[in-house]
């Protein structure tokens, strides 16, 4: 499966997490640089985003998943 790539490299001032999250496609995994200044990789799956980040030579990043929509959510699952 081909990786999703942003139209342009997404880079913001350090710590502009909101701008980066809003620029990312929904229902995707994104690899954020540790200082949250740029998106290193985007993938439909965790492994795809992780592999793309590693291929880019990055070592210091954290993966996060964008939801289907940025909504107010009451998560609290109970069984």
């Amino acid at each position, binding site marked *: 499966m081909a990786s999703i790539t942003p139209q342009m490299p997404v880079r913001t001032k350090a710590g502009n997490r909101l701008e980066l999250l*809003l620029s990312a496609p929904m229902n995707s995994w994104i690899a954020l640089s540790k200082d949250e200044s740029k998106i290193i990789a985007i993938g439909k799956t965790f492994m795809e985003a992780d592999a793309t980040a590693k291929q880019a030579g990055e070592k210091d*990043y*954290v*993966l996060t998943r964008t*939801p289907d929509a940025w909504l107010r959510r009451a998560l609290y*699952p109970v069984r």
Partner: protein
Amino acid sequence: MAAPGLVSCPLKYPYKQSPLPNGEVDRVPILSIQVARGSVLTSPFEAIIDSGSSDCLFHGDIARAVGITDITSGIHSVTGGVVGEAQMDLYAHDIRLLVGSDNFKITGQFSDQLPIGCLLGRPGFFDKFIVTFDPTEPNPGFELARIHKKK
């Protein structure tokens, strides 16, 4: 009588921002964690700390990243939320959770229906840490203190 627990020094983490509709912003207790199974270890990923969750929930992609190719091979259960009709299929698998320099075995519940990467709930997380939430300005955040209780 239970032996007193040994509590490590708490570590403080800032809340992270998450978008909301209409340009509003949520502040969320998010922790960077890793998961391992056998010798396979994931890269760090973000998890939301959720004291209301009755389990530690992970997106199915995390299972596949540690070699669980078919999440439905785990014990099946169904979870609901505060909205009555919303249900989610969960599959249990034993994993190791890495939080900072600490790691421990837990049973994770995995689902491809989870809209986010991970929720850290009561069994598996809140039974390992004392969590103190402080959402007040100017520095909203939370503290984690690992607790080691003798059984």
